[in-house]
C-alpha cells in the first residue's frame, strides 16, 4: 500500500507491504526489510538491515508525533484519496489552546451561517466558534470545561440535504 504524509510543506509517499513478520519498505528503488525487535517503556525497537530505529509515536486524528532516535518529528497522514484531512469542510476546531467555556448547540440543531456554536476561553479572552454556513450540527466532540488543542475537530456542521 501507499502511505501519503505531509512533512512541513511537502507531501511524501512511501510504498510499504507486509510479508509475514516483516515490513517491506520501498525507497528510491531499494527494498528495506523491517523487523520488530522489542518494546521498552513505550519505545519500539525496529531493526532495518542490522540498524536499530528507536521509535515512539502518537496519533490524534490525522496528526502524528514521532520520537525517533533522539529527534522529534511532527507530520500529518493524508487520506487515501490524497486529500488534505485538514480541509474537510464543516469540521471546526480551535485555533489556539483553550478551554471550552460554553457549548451553545447540540447534535441535530439547525444552524445558520454566523451562529455562535461554542465559546472558547483562552488567555482571558472569549473566542466564539461560528457556523461557516447553514446546516445541521452533525457531531460534537467537546463539553464545557474541556481543555482543547488547536486543530482537533470540536464540532461538525453538515449542509442539510
Amino acid at each position, binding site marked *: 500500500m501507499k502511505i501519503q504524509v505531509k512533512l512541513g510543506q511537502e507531501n511524501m509517499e512511501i510504498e510499504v507491504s507486509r510479508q509475514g513478520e516483516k515490513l517491506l519498505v520501498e525507497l528510491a528503488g531499494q527494498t528495506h526489510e523491517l523487523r520488530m525487535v522489542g518494546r521498552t517503556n513505550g519505545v519500539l525497537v525496529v531493526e532495518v538491515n542490522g540498524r536499530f530505529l528507536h521509535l515512539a509515536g502518537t496519533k490524534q486524528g490525522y496528526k502524528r508525533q*514521532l520520537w525517533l532516535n533522539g529527534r522529534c518529528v511532527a507530520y500529518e497522514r493524508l487520506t487515501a484519496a490524497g486529500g488534505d484531512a485538514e480541509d474537510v469542510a464543516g469540521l471546526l476546531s480551535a485555533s489556539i489552546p483553550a478551554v471550552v467555556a460554553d457549548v451553545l448547540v447540540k447534535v441535530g440543531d439547525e444552524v445558520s451561517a454566523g451562529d455562535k456554536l461554542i465559546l472558547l476561553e483562552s488567555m482571558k479572552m472569549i473566542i466564539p466558534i461560528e457556523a461557516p454556513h447553514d446546516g445541521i450540527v452533525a457531531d460534537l466532540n467537546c463539553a464545557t470545561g474541556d481543555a482543547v488543542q488547536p486543530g482537533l475537530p470540536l464540532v461538525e456542521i453538515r449542509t442539510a440535504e
Partner: protein
Amino acid sequence: MFSKILIANRGEIAQRLITAAQELGVKTVVVYSEADAGAPWVLAADEAYGLLGVTASETYLDQEKILDIAQACGAEGIHPGYGFLSENAGFAANCASRGIKFIGPSVDAMAVMGSKARARDVAVAVGVPVTPGVDGAGKSDAELAEAAVEIGYPVLIKASAGGGGKGMRVVGDPAEFLDALQVARSEAANSFGDDHIILEKFFTRIHHIEIQVLGDEYGHVIHCFERECSIQRRHQKIIEETPSPTIPHEVRLEMAQAAVTLAQAVNYASAGTVEFMYTGGGKFYLLEMNTRLQVEHPITELVTGLDLVQWQIRIASGERLSLTQADLSQRGHAIECRVYAENPAQNFLPSIGTLSHCSFPVMPHVRIDSGIVAGSAVTPYYDPMLAKVVVWGGTRRDAIARMVNALKRTVLLGVTHNIPYLLAILQESHFQAGETTTHYLADYFADWAEPAVWDDELALAIAAFELLDHGMSDMLTTGDAVMVKPDPWQNPTRWRNV
C-alpha cells in the same frame, strides 16, 4: 524539627519539596486542584486534600482554604515553593497569626525586598550597586538633559508610578532627549496621573547573574555562588548554568559579597536569590532580590553538594546554619534546561493535551525534576513547564554534551514541547563559546523553526508506525498512557505485581 508540613504548590516543585521533607523524616501534606487530582506528586505525599476548582485563584492562591486545611491536619509549617504564595508577605503574616511557620524569610524581609523602591534604598544604604539613575522630581528639563549625558547614553526614561511599559522611552541620541522627555511625562501623567519620571542607564546586551544566599535566624548568612540565567525568552529563563561562563573570579566574589551584605541588611533567614545584571568590565547592578526558592536551584545543589530545600526546612525549624563560607566550593559545571509544553516556532504558544509518552533518561549526573507521567494532562490553568533536566559535568563542555544526550533521550509525546529548540541552542557556536547575553535568543533564534528533514530513517519509521495497527482507534499510540478510565478494582494485570 517539624513533624508535618503542608506544601502549598503543585507539579515538579511539590515533588521536590516532598522528597526533601521525606529525607528529613517530616510528613508531607499536599493540597491539589481538581485538575491535579491523581497527579504523581499528589500520590507521593503522606496526606492530600482536594481544593474545589481549577484556576489558581480558586486553589493554590486561596490563602484561607489552605490555612484551614493546614490547621485541621496539624501541619506545623507551610512551604510555598516558588510562584503562587511564595512572595506574598501578607500570606506569611497570616501563617504566623494562625501559629503556622512560613518556610521562608521573615515577613519584614519579604515586604522590604518585595518593593523595588525600598529594596533600592536598602541597597544604596549598604553600598550595593544599583542601576545608575536620577530621580526627575523637581528637576528642570535642562538639568535632566545634563544628567543623561552624565549617566551615559542610551538612557531609559520611565514613569515613577509606572508599569507595563507605559511612560517608558529609550533614548539613544542626545538630540532626541527633550522630545522623548515630553512624551514620557505626558504618558506618565495620562496613565498614572503623575508626571514624576526617573532617568536610568539603559543596557541592551546584559548578563543575568544571580547569587544564591542562605541565612539562618541567628544572623549567619553565606552565599552559594552564582547562576548565569541569561538565556531568556519573553523575560523567562529557559537555560541556566553555574559557574557563569562570563564573569571573572574576582567579580564573582564581589557580587557574592554584595548579595550577602544585602541579605544581612534585612536579617534574611532562608534561601534567597539576589539578581544582578552584569554589563561587562566588572560592572554589575542590583535587579532585585527573590525571597524564595528559585526554579533553577538544582544547579547550585549539583556544584555545591548542598540541599537547599532541606536547609530551608531546617532553618525554619530553628536550626542553625552549621556551614561556613569556607566549607563551600563550586565543583565542576551544572546546567538546567526547562522543558516547556510550548511551540517556540509560534511565539512560544503554550501547548495543551495529554502526554501519551513520558520517559526520562536515567543516567549518571542527570537529574530530572518533574511532576508528570504518561497520561498526565497539560492544562491551560498553570505554568506549562513539564520538567527540569539538570546535568553535572566536570567542565562546561562535558555538561553541554551530557545535556544534549539527556534531552535526546527524553521522550515526551502528546504535546508540542521545546526540546528541539533547547537542543539547537546547546549546539549553537555562540552558546558553546559562552556568549550568553539576555539578547542571545533575539540575536540568533529570532525566526527559529524546527527543520523538517526528510531522510530514509524517517521514511522507514513512518512506514513502521503507520502500519503498527492499521485501522485501530484514533488514539493509537505506542505509549502506556491509559486513555479510558477502567474500573480501578477490575484490572488484575495492573495489580498483579504490586
